[in-house]
């Protein structure tokens, strides 16, 4: 059939496009904004002691902190997906009226100073805390100042990143595909797994990257709730802060390491799935 030709694909980089011109004035603040992001990193690079860099980065304490940061951030990110994914789905699709009172509260860790979040966790789970007392007397479990506390602190601050981007993706996708799936005989659970999740995969991916990056950079809540014990709770950002007082070169070297990890995360895990779906 001659009329059935594939729909033209959307051109991505289009040198021919001369649509509505961008106001030239926008370039000035835009350049300033970019400089504000990029120049401090350049400053770090210039100030670094490149000769000592290998030694500083391969030191026992640096490697320990790096491993702890990667491990805790990975576990926290998985927790964010397992808990935040369902929360986003409930917020986006739930029909209960009281849900709209819940939504703003989810953003709390995003606007709260992390130190305050850490203190709140301490008062909940500390030995004298509401839940901590129960855990301590009944099960002999103490959460604060353990690696588990690091994971909890990171999950606390990173959850909104995942929930917000995933909820947005769910709302954009709408529930019309799920309605079609239902008329084809798919139970709500099957429709969720085989239709909803694949459709919002790009949103889930970008939310995951954001959450992981936030976990890697977490400082305030960790130091308040988990302290700074080498090998147990001293993650990279905490080590940077500690070394800043005694060995500036070491602090700069570790900072560069964090920058490299962050750039790698963005480069490797940048969501690409979005292109294939539309």
């Amino acid at each position, binding site marked *: 059939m001659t009329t059935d030709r594939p729909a033209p694909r959307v051109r991505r980089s289009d040198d021919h496009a001369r649509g509505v011109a961008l106001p030239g004035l926008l370039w000035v603040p835009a350049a300033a904004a970019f400089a504000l992001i990029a120049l401090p990193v350049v400053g770090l690079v210039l100030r670094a002691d490149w000769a000592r860099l290998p030694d500083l980065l391969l030191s026992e304490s640096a490697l320990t902190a790096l491993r702890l940061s990667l491990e805790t951030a990975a576990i926290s990110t998985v927790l964010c997906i397992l808990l935040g994914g369902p929360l986003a789905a409930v917020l986006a699709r739930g029909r209960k009226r009281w849900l709209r009172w819940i939504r703003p509260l989810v953003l709390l860790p995003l606007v709260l100073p992390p130190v305050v979040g850490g203190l709140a966790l301490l008062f909940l789970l500390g030995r004298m805390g509401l839940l901590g007392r129960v855990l301590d007397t009944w099960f002999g479990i103490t959460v604060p100042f353990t690696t588990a506390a690091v994971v909890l602190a990171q999950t606390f601050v990173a959850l909104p990143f995942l929930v917000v981007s995933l909820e947005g993706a769910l709302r954009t996708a709408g529930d019309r595909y799920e309605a079609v799936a239902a008329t*084809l005989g798919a139970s709500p659970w099957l429709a969720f797994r085989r239709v909803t999740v694949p459709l919002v995969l790009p949103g889930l991916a970008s939310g995951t990257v954001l959450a992981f990056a936030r976990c890697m950079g977490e400082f305030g809540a960790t130091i308040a709730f988990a302290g700074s014990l080498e090998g147990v709770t001293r993650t990279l950002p905490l080590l940077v802060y500690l070394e800043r007082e005694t060995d500036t070169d070491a602090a700069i070297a570790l900072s560069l390491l964090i920058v490299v990890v962050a750039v790698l995360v963005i480069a490797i895990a940048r969501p690409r799935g979005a292109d*294939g779906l539309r």
Partner: protein
Amino acid sequence: MTDPWLSARVLVRRPAFTLDVEFTAEHGEVVAVIGPNGAGKSTLLGVLAGLLVPDGGEIRLGDRVVTAPGLHVPPHRRGVGLLAQQAMLFPHLTALANVAFGPRAHGVPRAAAEARARELLAAVDAADLAHRRPARMSGGQQQRVALARALAPRPELLLLDEPLAALDVDAAPAMRSLLRRLVRAERQTALLVTHDALDALVLADRVVVLTDGRIVEQGPTREVLARPRSAFTARIAGLDLVPGVALADGLRTADGTTVAGRLDGVAVGEPAVAVFPPAAVSVFAQEPKGSPRNVFPVRLAAIEPRGDVVRLRASAVPGGPGWVDGLAADVTPAAVADLGLEPGMVLWFAVKAAETAVYPAR
């Protein structure tokens, strides 16, 4: 008399709108639902599919009650399929996986589900698209795959919500003949929402006309479209309709004008409609003297080219009869030029009594 296979009584109350309908369908029958925008057609389909919960009523499919007060069988357990205006193929799945989705959801093993999907893709002339994703198909191709997908789980009732409306003029005929082959000829029980008299004639055994949430007429497709009883149906059928009360030799409208016509099965004094085809209307720039008995002044509202004729759409002139609003007259393009027609002009429409049928309004 045996019970009909599908019987539905649906009541939906919205702040600005009430849907209150009752209809039936036999097994293997295709029923067209036509009506103006906002008449409640999509709401009705939503209720039948189980996607909306009505405020009242009862829906029975075969010997299963799927909706009743306090009872709501969820959409995935109803066996009611849906093909809408947009194909809504799952964008992350190939055509084959889209069509196999329904059988898989019903627990059919993968190999058997894919065999059924291949069979249906071949039936909709899309076998070569099996491994394509929707983004790489045309609108017509997507809609054909969507039809295959809707049929794959063997729905007991198939809902077709204007399945041709979003297709371009080249793709629509192919889709229409597919629907005729796979739905009507296969005796698939279906409800077809459409705006198009042609779709109803080609695809449906019966027509239900819905206006403002109520059924205003229903019956075998041919009969309803040949003898419309409401302004909307007349317009769909491409006929002119004037409501009124039957006289011995025609009809008297609400404002007292007389339209001459031949009576057909209606007694004097009964509510009736006078119906004539737009091609039977002659158009004059001045009031004609002589033979035609039905002559009325109109204001020319619109000029619509339709193939080799031009359709003139009338509106009322101040002081003239109001019921001329919306009447159509088909003239030749040459006549448009000769009369120097322009929207806003006052014209005279004339219809011979012999061309005008007057029959009961109910």
